């Protein structure tokens, strides 16, 4: 695993070492460590309750780790407040999607566009945020002047909500994007339209982490997969190799 190339550390956008977190007596994440190259698409998989979402919450600052270290672009971000981490360029989606329900879809993107990060990147002035917001919605497949763009976000169908979440990450112009079960509940047709958006992100040099249960779709696009079970990494490698491992099969299928 990536330990030998220490001198190549400049390429790592994210370095996680020995990360642990427990809730009361439950050890949710135990000594997790891995590095992530810039431009890589990493899948994180594992059975329910294996600590995937806890790991995301630790990286994005929503939880503080009991021990361990997280470095982003060479900077120690362990235990920083979520908004500080987001300003450095880490965007995430949530497993439970709750849009800003009362606002129209495109107004949902005003929130990330209002972020100090975006203001900083665009030199303070962004002009008409509404039209920029619609640009981002178009990028994820909303038609510009259609009713879905103006509809209250709370009444959007599931597929559009997922795209809206993705658009929020785009609008933040993040370098590392963490997608927590983005594919869940999407139809094959919806997936076919959302996968190219992710592929485009990676081709633009963004780094992506995807937590997924839909392995078939994930393995088609992931460069690398980390498998978690009971909070520990049990495998880390390219998708086809990882699934050959006995531990992984056991974790997913149960021991026979």
């Amino acid at each position: 695993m990536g330990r030998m190339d220490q001198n190549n550390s400049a390429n790592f956008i994210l370095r996680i070492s020995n990360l642990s977190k427990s809730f009361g007596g439950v050890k949710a994440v135990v000594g997790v460590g891995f590095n992530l190259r810039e431009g890589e698409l990493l899948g994180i998989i594992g059975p329910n309750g294996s600590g995937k979402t806890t790991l995301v919450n630790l990286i994005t600052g929503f939880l503080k780790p009991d021990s361990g270290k997280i470095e982003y672009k060479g900077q120690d971000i362990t235990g920083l407040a979520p908004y500080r981490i987001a300003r450095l360029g880490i965007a995430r989606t949530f497993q439970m999607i709750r849009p800003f329900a009362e606002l129209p879809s495109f107004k949902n993107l005003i929130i990330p566009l209002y972020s100090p990060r975006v203001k900083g990147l665009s030199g303070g002035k962004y002009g008409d945020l509404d039209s920029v917001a619609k640009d981002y919605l178009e990028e994820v497949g909303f038609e510009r002047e259609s009713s879905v763009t103006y509809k209250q976000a709370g009444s959007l169908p599931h597929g559009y909500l997922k795209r809206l979440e993705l658009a929020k990450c785009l609008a933040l112009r993040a370098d590392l994007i963490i997608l927590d079960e983005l594919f869940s509940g999407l139809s094959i047709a919806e997936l076919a339209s959302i996968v190219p958006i992710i592929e485009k992100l990676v081709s633009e040099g963004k780094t992506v982490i995807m937590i997924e249960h839909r392995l078939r779709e994930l393995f088609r696009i992931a460069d690398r997969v980390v498998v978690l079970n009971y909070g520990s990494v049990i495998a880390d490698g390219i998708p086809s190799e990882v699934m050959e491992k006995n531990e992984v099969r056991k974790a997913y299928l149960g021991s026979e």
Partner: protein
Amino acid sequence: MKQRRKERIDRGIKARSDDVFSLNSFREMLYVAVPPIAPVLLLIILPLVLPSYWQKVLISTCIFALLAMSWDFLVCVGMVSLGQALFFGVGAYVAGILNKLVGLPIWVDIPIATVLGGAICAVLLTPVLRLRGVYFSMVTLVLPLMLERIVEASGMFGGTEGISGIKPFPNPLVESYVIVFITLFALFAFRRLVTTDYGLVLKAIKDNDRAVMSVGINIYWMKAQALFIAGCVGAFCGAFMTHVYGFVGMPSFALDFSILPLSAAVVGGMGTFAGSFVGAFILVPFSEALRGIGGLRIVLYSFFLVLFIVALPEGIFHYIQRKYQQFERWVEVDK
């Protein structure tokens, strides 16, 4: 062949969003312009025609309308305050101290009390910004009661006696117009503020604070700013009333200033500010008019409060607004 059918008036006028209109006739312009202009005209005329007792009622109506709007604004950000009396009391004491003990003139001490009072309230509530829902409400309920007891126990600022002999406004008409203009200003400013990008971010915090944090916005700083804005409005009310009464004391922290604005906003309709305005203009004069019947006043008042809330849970303003938008007229069409 000609036929008559009904048509919604707002149909040709509204172009997609709420704030873009296409107006083709004077009548259509009136349809859009009357709702915002009517309350302005009403409030400008009222001080001239009301007898002096009802002028005082108008003042306290405006005060409760302002407190209700300030409450409504905090609700927009997801903070349900049960302690508007905190804002009112702090503003009242700051104005009283500045006027009586420091000797500042009225036109200086009220603006200072407004801003300083807002800042003091925001600072007092900063430690509990992380609390959500009912936990935040509990703290806001307790704070004014606590300050009241601190004043009593320590004997600060006149203790239980309060500070009296505070200079009044030069004349009643000035007094009325100051409060009328500030109320109208606050009404339109608040309505405008929540539709700006800044206002959208505040509303988003209520919907989903974690999502707002995850895009790099410090929600505690935003909430502190919202508290400051709401606090300024509340502190202005306190400062103003101090000069109306010529006195400031422990009653400034009374529960009335917390509960009445809340019921005005709920009865009027939350989230629009106009609702708070309408609510206060119904409840406060109503409560005054009931004074004649003596002891049963509170019973009757409470009865009507319950009636409003049960019959019109959306609030009076939302109801009127909906009906207004559904106005129809007869038009002739070719068949």
